[in-house]
């Protein structure tokens, strides 16, 4: 009896000591935070990537981390948090701690198209922009064996009875929306065939299972070089620097501008001085020769955008994409 009482006393002491230690730990946290603002960063940066390892987003981010890490003397950790078209990772990014240590990688599609198609738990104004990274236009391609040599040949299908099967990386992605909008504007009979990602869609075109595909240059260029695929047009206002001889849809009278661009963002409550520091760190990194070299090797182009323009531009594209989606009957929200 006595013994058990002593034991419980001992237990109580443990709890008390634990509480004390914990509260000390918490004060430690808060003091660190104020320190952190003066001298940032003092601990590793965590970047959440809402897509799988191995893709072009993953590679760009890893190349950037390799440059930033040594520069700031802290490691840069990348967490792949894929799922639901990137919306899970971005949702978690919107709810991350506003310390500047938790950064989220975004691609414009998940910010300006997905929210029109289903409910997501974030909006563009939840974030502050840090740096713009890459810009990837959407390109329409056909198999080299196809009858269509130019965009005009394809537009001429207007009067035929043929139903064109177009492949893309998944419902609601830019490669889907652009083709859907083009075929409906051009009055061509067409059927959407979604695949799970750009790779499988391009593969289906190579195998002759579909008639056209829209994808990003990095996914198409190797097959263009080998002569298996022909590019017909780019869905952006200007021609793409790496594909100078491919015309834009605008030149043919279709005003369709949907390019994917990627950026790093932090939660909106992150203190301004920390945001400024992060912008400096990453702007220096994207202007480094190493990073430019990386982009060139991988058929990627940098995007020219000021950090504080990132969120306003997302909002702008959110509105314009909403209109396009409404016209082709894909807008749900």
């Amino acid at each position: 009896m006595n013994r058990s009482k002593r034991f419980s006393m001992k237990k109580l002491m443990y709890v008390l000591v634990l509480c004390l230690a914990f509260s000390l730990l918490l004060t430690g946290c808060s003091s660190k935070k104020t320190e952190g603002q003066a001298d940032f960063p003092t601990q590793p940066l965590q970047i959440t990537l809402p897509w799988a390892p191995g893709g072009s987003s993953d590679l760009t981010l890893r190349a950037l981390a390799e440059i930033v890490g040594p520069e700031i003397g802290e490691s840069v950790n990348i967490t792949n948090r894929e799922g639901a078209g990137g919306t899970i990772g971005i949702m978690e990014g919107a709810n991350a701690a506003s310390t500047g240590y938790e950064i989220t990688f975004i691609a414009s599609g998940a910010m300006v198209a997905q929210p029109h198609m289903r409910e997501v738990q974030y909006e563009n104004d939840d974030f502050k922009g840090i740096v713009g990274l890459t810009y990837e236009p959407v390109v329409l391609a056909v198999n080299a064996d196809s009858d269509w040599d130019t965009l005009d040949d394809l537009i001429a299908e207007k009067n035929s009875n043929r139903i064109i099967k177009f492949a893309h990386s998944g419902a609601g992605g830019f490669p889907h929306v652009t083709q859907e909008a083009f075929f409906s504007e051009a009055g061509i009979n067409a059927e959407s065939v979604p695949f799970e990602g750009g790779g499988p869609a391009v593969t289906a075109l190579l195998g002759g299972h579909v008639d056209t595909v829209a994808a990003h240059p990095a996914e198409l260029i190797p097959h263009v070089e080998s002569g298996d695929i022909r590019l017909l047009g780019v869905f952006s206002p200007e021609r793409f620097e790496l594909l100078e001889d491919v015309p834009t849809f605008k030149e043919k009278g279709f005003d369709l501008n949907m390019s994917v661009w990627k950026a790093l963002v932090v939660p909106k409550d992150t203190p301004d001085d920390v945001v400024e520091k992060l912008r400096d760190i990453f702007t220096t990194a994207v202007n480094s020769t190493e990073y430019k070299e990386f982009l060139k090797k991988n058929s990627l182009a940098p995007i020219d955008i000021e950090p504080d323009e990132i969120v306003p531009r997302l909002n702008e594209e959110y509105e314009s994409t909403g209109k396009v989606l409404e016209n082709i009957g894909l807008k749900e929200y």
Partner: protein
Amino acid sequence: MGELLINSFVDVFQIENILFIFLGVATGIVFGSLPGLTATVGVALMLPVTFGLTPTTGMLLLLGVYCGGIYGGSITAILIRTPGTPASAATVIDGYEMAKQGKAGMALRIALFASVIAGLFSALILLFIGPQIAKFALNFGPTEFFALALFGLTMIASVSGKSIIKGMIMGFLGLFISTIGIDPIDGIPRVSFNNEYLMSGISLIPALVGLFAISEIINRAQTAHLPNTHDDRNVDTKLPFSKVRPHMKTILKSSGIGTFVGAIPGTGAAIASFLSYNEAYRVSKNKKQFGKGSLGGIAASEAGNNGVTGATLIPLLTLGIPGDMVTAIMLGALTMQGLTPGPQLFTNHADVVYTIMIGLLIVNIVMFIQGRLAIKLFVKITAIPVSLLLPILLALSFIGAYGVNNTLFDVKLMMIFGVIGYIMPKFGFPIIPMLLGIVLGPIAETSFRQALLLSDGSWMIFLTKPISAIFILIAFLSFLLPIVKPYFSKKVENKT
């Protein structure tokens, strides 16, 4: 070509290549054998390491992890009924039975032997007829994928045990689970109740770990207080070649199936292993032995999944198409090095390509050496007291399930599947058909709907395309024959 081969052969034997192959295979075996940590996780973790290496060494490291990981999955499948990777789920069926009979060593050895033979077979195919196979694999469009998936689903008949109806119920439950999340065609959330986590679907790993590992932990925990009764002294049973010889045909055939499946982008080791097991069961004259510790069953499953390893590089290296997560990461590793996989790779960097392909042969030989040592060590797991083994296993399962997507949601899912995996078999509902449904469901559904979009809604597309028609025919036969046969043989008996 001859000179190139010899040069590449010499290149492989550079000290750092061999060193990183050893490191890779060892890492792979560890990752593969731990429940929840798969070959894919291992390869993803090793990706940043390759940035500092030459393209060849980096790729050999990743290939080592990949092959080792696919093989390693069999170790825990056999010893503790917990497949380390989805690809070894079919190995559980016979492997664990053998372990229970005290023949764990024998089961582990045939798994290693079959894995290595299949790996070598696959690497040789890649080396000599890779580009030709790649061209053929492009013929696989949505229609053919659906036929293949349907064929895979007929395996439900061979793993259902006593009641084929109960097997089918579980299979359909698995298919239902695979429909949770964003619909692959229209992008509409299904059965997800506006929950972001459910929207991304049920991940395979938490389901696998729950169905097998957690259920087994619960089962064993019930008898953990009893003293260990079975004899552990002689579990490290040897495998004389005379016992392997009758299964050589199965191993080679399964290697072929694995290689074939691996060459088609978008399939994977799990499907290959299921198909091989099913085929071995179909042709076997001794069907009763399957499910009760058949060496042939283990050999088929393990040769099937390792047969994929070399073949999966075929679309990657020749067309620049990653067929699954692992090859997607390898594609990343190569592009980071400035080598864009694709048709141009063979012309521009033939030396690197051939060194990688020959290196794959070495990877499999290293796997054989390390595997033999690992077996001696791993077989001792059976001697660990249950009271120690279970907590360790439980902790590993939690880490594994959490690690897939870095979320606790998956841990909860794993526990739900653990309860399913524990309760359902008590009522005679087998769990392998459920796993089959979860693995094949997404492929079957997506490709079925894509095919109908392509055919403007006509179902005839599945029968007018030759490859698809053949698979559907075999699927029907392999499903119907076991049901019809007893009826016919009874008739014959009645007549006499």
